[in-house]
């Protein structure tokens, strides 16, 4: 009887496992195989006939002295900076809003709903609206900054050139922070009120309560939240694609768009797959290091 019970969980997991294999692992393995092939337009019709190219696709991708490698490296740094800023601001805004909305006051429900709107909107509709607002001559952003507030003498470009990076970060933060807000708001519900009452008795101010009670209690939530935000933001494809179209400006050339360019637009699917595998390895490495350190620190704390 006990032996049979042991088998049941595995059996119940089987459909999920089969789906997982089909939907995630098979395409991943196919992608890895493709990365070792010279898969250009001449072979896509029957890609099993594409010649093997060994490590050539990888060599070209990481040859940082040649243009392909150079632009990949540039795209990598742009993505790192973008991720740091977008995740940082989203987390900060999310935390601040969640903490402020803990106090009950008139209109709290309305604000909560309002804050979640960017998260509920379809990405395409939301980002295309931003791209209209960022247009130089007719956009709302320049109308506000230049015509109303007189902050610049001349209308700046937002969708091309240096400012495109700023535009991208603004849209990404706008789109991402409600998720941080939602998660942290849920996390805050689990902190017992008595802790704050006791702290207040002991004379702790708001700032001290935040540092000594709120943030430590939120640590498990934050551990997962920051990781998820990092992975989503680093891999973000929709935002830059809808904002800039197929050829993003160099200053805002995120890695997923860059890989798309390298495979779909230039029809070199082998090179694109090699870059994807490199990206996967990098993300796995970062995730492993992150989990290793954050989990160890939690063990030490406990």
């Amino acid at each position, binding site marked *: 009887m006990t032996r*049979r019970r042991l*088998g*049941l969980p595995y*059996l*119940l997991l*089987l*459909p999920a496992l*089969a*789906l997982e294999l*089909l939907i995630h692992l098979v395409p991943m393995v196919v992608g890895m195989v493709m990365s070792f092939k010279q898969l*250009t*337009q*001449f072979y*896509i*019709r*029957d*890609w099993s006939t594409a010649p093997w190219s060994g490590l050539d696709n990888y060599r070209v991708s990481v040859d940082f002295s*040649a*243009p*392909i490698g150079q*632009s990949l490296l540039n795209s990598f740094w742009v993505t790192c900076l973008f991720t740091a800023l977008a995740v940082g601001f989203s987390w900060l805004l999310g935390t601040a809003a969640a903490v402020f909305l803990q106090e009950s006051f008139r209109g709290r429900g309305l604000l909560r709903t309002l804050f979640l709107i960017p998260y509920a909107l379809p990405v395409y509709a939301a980002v295309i609206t931003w791209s209209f607002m960022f*247009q*130089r*001559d007719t956009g709302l952003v320049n109308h506000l900054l230049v015509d109303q507030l007189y902050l610049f003498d001349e*209308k700046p*470009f937002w*969708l*091309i*050139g*240096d400012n495109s990076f700023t535009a991208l970060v603004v849209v990404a933060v706008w789109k991402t922070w409600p998720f941080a807000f939602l998660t942290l708001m849920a996390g805050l519900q689990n902190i017992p009120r008595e802790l704050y009452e006791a702290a207040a008795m002991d004379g702790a101010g708001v700032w001290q309560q935040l540092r000594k009670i709120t943030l430590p209690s939120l640590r498990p939530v934050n551990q997962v939240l920051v990781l998820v935000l990092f992975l989503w933001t680093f891999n973000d494809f929709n935002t830059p694609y809808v904002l800039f*179209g*197929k*050829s993003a*400006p*160099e200053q805002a050339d995120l890695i997923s768009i860059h890989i798309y*360019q390298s495979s*779909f*637009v*230039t*029809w*070199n699917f082998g090179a694109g797959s090699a870059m994807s595998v490199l990206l996967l390895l990098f993300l796995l490495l970062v995730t492993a290091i992150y989990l290793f350190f954050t989990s160890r620190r939690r063990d030490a704390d406990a």
Partner: protein
Amino acid sequence: MRINRLAAATALVSVLTLTATACGGGSTSGGGDNSSPKTLTYWASNQGTSLENDKQVLEPELRKFEAQTGIKVKLEVVPWSDLLNRILAATASGQGPDVLNIGNTWSASLQATGALLPFDDATFGKIGGKDRFLPATIASAGAAGKAPAAVPLYSMAYGLYYNKKLFDAAGISKPPATWEELVADGQKLTKDGKYGLAIEGGNVSENVHHAFALGKQHGADWFDAAGKPVFDTPEAVATVKQYVDFIAKDKIAAPGNAEYAANQSVTDFASGKAAMLMWQAAGASLKSHGMNPDDYAVAPIPLPAGASGSKAVTSMVAGINLAVFKNSKNTDGALQFVKFMTSNEEQIQLNKTYGSIPPVKDAQADTAFATPELKMLSNVLATGAAPLPQVANESQFETLVGTAVKNLLAAAAAGKPVTEDSVKAELTKAQQQMPAS
């Protein structure tokens, strides 16, 4: 015990269903299949003012075809932004439409994939012969010396649209014939927030089309005789610099044009914000923007002073080709449909609606195409137009050189200097990203 069996059965069924559906997407055999003769799927490109408009234009014609042949055509209008990706996906999976529209500049690239039915003489015979088409349009349907990958459907050429009222007001009596005149006129017209010229600087394809025609005038060919890319020759640098200088040095185009990618330049021309526009068959869209046809006229794109022979090119052969997917399960029906779409009657009807020029010579003689605009453009197409390089790596050329021009225009618009060196650096970078072949 019962629960166990149930679970096992459920698991087994789900695994079986999954593998079965996964195998369903397997390969289909090569051309010549006629196993489903009563239906066709047709991917049309977006030629009208909207996808919905295209459906309204095409559906009655498809019903006519059904009445004639008994073949039902399932229509899908695919936006330009998706079309190439959809074709690539169809090529890779073998699951695609039977008949499809392609941008004619993709012909050689798609020909190289082997996904399209080659139009050899026998196949051309089934649709009424090769000689019915204008030679320049056949030349842009595949690599030289190979059976074309498609047949021409709608043709277009670039012309210089100019606003007659603004020209009169500035005291300019005739459209510019040389680039020197264009820049001089442009500077006269650039005042009071209006500009001499509007360009679509954020649109990679527009950039590369102009770089191609201008390049012909400078003697820059982009690919050498062996099909190798040569993007950073002195001629190519001069070509691109001339185009970027419209914003950088001549200042006859508004800096804001550098981010235009949604046909804002057509809107600017229609609303009188810009006095000149280099565009292909713009008549229909100018009309939809409410511009009075009497207010503008069309002239050939300027040439360098004294240009002749192979340098007297003012336009690419622009247009849409119709192709048959090799994996079609109704190849005979697909060819019947191609014959229908390239018949004189349909050619006149459809090209008239879309404001383009029929590539079929007999259809071109119809009075519908005798407007000054279309007569001028058909003349360009017959005498002053060259097909874009018909090499397998053409689509990479479009993307890389078009993006290089876009980057340079962005730099110029931000007030950064554009020099021969900076142009050469961008073009060298584009060339080095071309796949080795």
